[in-house]
């Protein structure tokens, strides 16, 4: 569906994308990961034909994005980082306007607006002025405009940024329900979101694709190493002695207060958790917590980005 070949983008002298190449098939859900300024938004803007690439080419469904941009825009639904909303319009009027611009046939326009509003659960606010809506609703209106013409490719730039956990969950469920036959590209800083929604991950750093793998493969690789948090009450020395005894357990960091000690650990294998626990129960310490430090994807992401820095 998407074929990008050596895409490079300069802003002035600054290289924002550096020979990015990838292919995305129909129906794939791909997560773009990367820190701020990595080039994710620029890449998405090139895919939507909002920005031209400085060099390289990209085609969507066989249409060259630069040369056949109108044809490309007909099959792409795009939600920018800040939902592009006309605040003084009502939800329904805005979606009707979007439908007209996106070539939805006049006869189907009303039906399509109704369908999208119920899909995005906007019926209860259809006559409300967008400016008066909560951030979660605004985000849903943004998604609704992106899918108003049933695009075969959906590009969502940080669709859950700034939302509270409940809104976050609602928007994430909405995206999950949109999958069906669509190809979805999603960029986010919330890595657990990618773990739940995407099937493939592209980690972008300084304009280059560091990793482009299926999520399951990436997690399998990262599952060999696991970071844990251990929180205990009692003698710190006892815990340190146990950690020294067990091979393949690395103590990354320790934070102590008068009563409690917090250990960041890296275990070479998940099986070592049992060994560690069985040793600790024989010591004069009270185990308050032993839990995974971060999500595995987050761990992989951070280690890959840092690895590259080194």
């Amino acid at each position, binding site marked *: 569906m998407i074929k990008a070949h050596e895409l490079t983008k300069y802003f002035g002298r600054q290289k924002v994308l550096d020979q990015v190449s990838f292919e995305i098939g129909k129906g794939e859900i791909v997560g773009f990961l990367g820190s701020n300024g990595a080039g994710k938004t620029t890449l998405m*803007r090139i895919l*939507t*034909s*909002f*920005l031209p690439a400085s060099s390289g080419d990209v085609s969507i469904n066989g249409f060259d994005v630069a040369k056949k941009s*109108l*044809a490309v*825009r*007909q099959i*792409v639904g*795009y939600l*920018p980082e*800040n*939902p*592009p*909303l*006309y*605040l*003084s*319009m009502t939800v329904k*009027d805005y979606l009707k*306007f*979007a439908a*007209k*611009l*996106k*070539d939805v046939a*006049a006869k189907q326009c009303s039906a399509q607006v109704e369908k999208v509003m119920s899909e995005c659960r906007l019926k209860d606010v259809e006559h409300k002025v967008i400016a008066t809506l909560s951030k979660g609703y605004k985000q849903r209106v943004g998604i609704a*405009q992106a899918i108003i013409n049933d695009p075969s490719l959906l590009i969502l730039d940080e669709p859950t940024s700034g939302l509270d956990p409940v809104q976050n969950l609602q928007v994430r469920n909405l995206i999950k329900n949109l999958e069906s036959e669509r190809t979805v590209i999603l960029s986010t800083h919330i890595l657990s979101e990618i773990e739940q929604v995407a099937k493939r991950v592209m980690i972008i750093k300084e304009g280059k694709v560091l990793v482009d793998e299926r999520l399951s493969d990436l997690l399998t690789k990262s599952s060999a190493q696991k970071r844990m948090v251990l929180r205990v009450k009692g003698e710190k020395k006892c815990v340190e002695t146990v950690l020294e005894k067990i091979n393949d357990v690395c103590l990354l960091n320790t934070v102590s207060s008068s009563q409690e000690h917090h250990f960041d650990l890296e275990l070479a294998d998940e099986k070592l958790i049992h060994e560690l626990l069985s040793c600790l129960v024989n010591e004069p310490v009270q185990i308050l917590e032993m839990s995974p430090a971060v999500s595995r994807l987050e761990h992989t992401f951070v280690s890959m980005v840092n690895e590259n820095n080194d």
Partner: protein
Amino acid sequence: MTKIFAITQKELSGYFRSPMAYIVLLVTMSIFHVFFFIIIDHNQEATLRDVFAVMEFLFVFIVPLLTMKVFAEEKATGTMEFLMTTPTTNTAIVLGKFFGSLIFMTTIIGVIFVYYAIIEFYGSPDRLATFSGILGLWLEGALFVAIGLMASSWTRNQMVAAICTYLILFMLYFSVTLEKFLSGTLGALVSYSGVWSHTKNFSAGLITLSDVTYFVTGIVLSLLITRYCIENRLWR
């Protein structure tokens, strides 16, 4: 065409959803009302010629206020990204926005017909001069709107857009004051580029090809520059 109409409709309803439109309409009508009776009383003549001059002067000040947000606001709020990632041509976007502003400006000009009805009722005005004057006023307004759109396409800051429009309109409107200091080709050029030398013919009931060409060329040129600016994202 559907898209141009959709954008025009959105622009027009946008004007009426903001207090600025009502303020502009109210101020224009009030000033117009006062000047109409002063002029009629002073001239003792059933003509709108001097009233047109007041309206032209008002346009210099109100058009930048109306057009400053047309593109600048879209860029500042990010809706420009929405517009430009829909399958809509840049020409359709520019024309839709131009027609939206033009229709609003035409509404302002429409106020004139109330006063025309008054002088028609109480006197016998020169109808040709009145209608050609209205046409001249409308063409001048359309040119100012096109220039306002062009300036709005240069920046994401509404104030900057308004100031740029004011600068251009002041040059076009007040260039008449420079005419007496200049002679030869430069003098002729300044005289031709100013709007005054063209609208005065319309007000006198004279519709010349040269004057119509001046306005139409100015409008088309401004809209082409606008399209070029948004096509090349020159506001970045």
